[in-house]
């Protein structure tokens, strides 16, 4: 089973993999799409420069689903990774195998968090703007975040410390004064378990959530079940915003300057249309059309503008929750393994992101561990990781 495109052997002790949304100069970056087959970037992502300066060495790149909007990578141009009828994530497999100690990924639509939950790994999606997105393939810029995956919270924390920080080259990078708030950690003492976010999960996922909740309680953290009808709306609003942003971002791929070019065409319109039609997969085409429709004159106010306003409602709802709680606890996926058969629903990632959309649409930090997801206040990622590290210590 091929889980990553390996570089030549490196001697570094701190071996990492990066997913195919992160630009590298010595390996192709395809975003899982035929459109970028063989594309090699002129510059590398800022996060890789920082990781390299700190002694991390990239051993290879893991495949992602086309533009990272699918479940766990099953729409990758080189095919889905399937073992015993179960969909696998290349990034998660690379970490599980022990070949790499960490992975740097781009969390666009939650596929990273879903696979981490299913593989009992740890991931941190930091507060939006604290880690540079310079040199990542843009898809849904207002919510996507560079994330770190590892076997332990400590390993996540070490790499995150290295790659976080202001970057002039990223217009959405926060100033150092803001990013410094990450180190002002306050311990997590009260957690709201959002019962409305547990709807639709299977027995095993529910049991994992319950076990994690009990573990937190044993550590002296108060876990309170809370009903909330606003946070679950995140999915519908995020699907609109993600698709609208994706539609604009992938409009640059036309088969002329780089990437895939159709062989048969008789005029410029056919060149564009045939190149895009032949290179893009079905989920991506639907997302483009949907995003385009939400931005149309007829729907802009009714759909796109509405989703932007609902985003504020959700952000304010989280702020209300954080007045009483330090973090919220939710699942990261509905089941602990996706059978191959789920692919019969081509658009399942537009439903399964119910669990990951709240952190995506708000830019809040999310840590996935032990099959569950903790979402914290802005800049609380270190506090969340500290709590998970404590759980790991107690579990030994």
């Amino acid at each position, binding site marked *: 089973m091929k889980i990553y495109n390996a570089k030549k052997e490196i001697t570094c002790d701190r071996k990492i993999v990066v997913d195919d949304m992160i630009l590298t100069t010595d390996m192709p970056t395809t975003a899982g799409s035929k459109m970028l087959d063989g594309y090699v970037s002129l510059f590398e992502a800022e996060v890789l420069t920082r990781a390299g300066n700190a002694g991390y060495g990239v051993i290879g790149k893991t495949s992602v689903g086309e533009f990272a909007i699918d479940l766990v990578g099953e729409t990758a141009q080189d095919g889905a990774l399937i073992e015993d009828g179960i969909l696998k994530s290349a990034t998660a497999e690379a970490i599980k195998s022990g070949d790499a100690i960490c992975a740097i990924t781009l969390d666009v639509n939650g596929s990273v968090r879903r696979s981490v939950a299913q593989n009992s790994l740890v991931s941190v999606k930091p507060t939006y703007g604290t880690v540079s997105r310079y040199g990542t393939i843009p898809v849904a810029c207002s919510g996507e975040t560079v994330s770190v995956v590892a076997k332990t919270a400590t390993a996540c924390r070490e790499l995150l410390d290295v790659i976080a920080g202001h970057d002039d080259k990223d217009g959405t990078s926060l100033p150092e004064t803001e990013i410094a708030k990450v180190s002002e950690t306050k311990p997590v003492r009260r957690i709201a378990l959002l019962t409305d976010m547990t709807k639709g999960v299977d027995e095993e996922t529910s049991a994992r959530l319950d076990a994690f909740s009990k573990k937190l309680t044993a550590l002296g953290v108060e876990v309170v079940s809370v009903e909330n009808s606003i946070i679950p709306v995140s999915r519908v609003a995020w699907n609109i915003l993600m698709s609208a942003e994706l539609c604009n971002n992938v409009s640059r791929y036309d088969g002329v300057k780089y990437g895939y*070019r159709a062989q048969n065409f008789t005029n410029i319109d056919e060149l564009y249309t045939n190149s895009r*039609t032949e290179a893009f997969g079905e989920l991506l085409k639907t997302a483009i059309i949907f995003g385009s429709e939400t931005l149309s004159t007829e729907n802009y106010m009714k759909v796109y503008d509405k989703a932007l306003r609902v985003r504020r409602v959700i952000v304010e709802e989280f702020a209300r929750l954080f007045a009483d709680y330090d973090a919220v606890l939710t699942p990261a996926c509905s089941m602990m393994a996706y059978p191959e058969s789920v692919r019969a629903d081509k658009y399942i990632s537009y439903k399964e992101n119910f669990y990951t959309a709240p952190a995506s649409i708000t830019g809040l930090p999310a840590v996935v561990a032990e099959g569950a997801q903790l979402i914290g206040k802005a800049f609380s990622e270190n506090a969340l990781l500290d709590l998970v590290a404590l759980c790991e210590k107690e579990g030994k």
Partner: protein
Amino acid sequence: MDRDTLRRLGMLNQLSLTDVQKEEIIAFFDERESEAKAELDVIDTSDVERMVHVMPVFTVVREDVASQPFTREALQAGAPETDEGYWCVPRVLE
């Protein structure tokens, strides 16, 4: 969503769709529309400001210094076809 609108959207986005894809996309749209009605439209946002950025955005400026970050060869390395330093663009004039 009707077929005419879908055809127009396909054209605008430079995508050609098969009949099967059109049916699937129409069903996808119908589902998304129902969700929006059921979940978004029930939230009163008449007094709520839009939130485009979740974090404050700061204008980034840098010194206006001329530089040559990439060579012509490097810039053309990813092009489908080049010739003596020029991009080869397919013949498209009829």
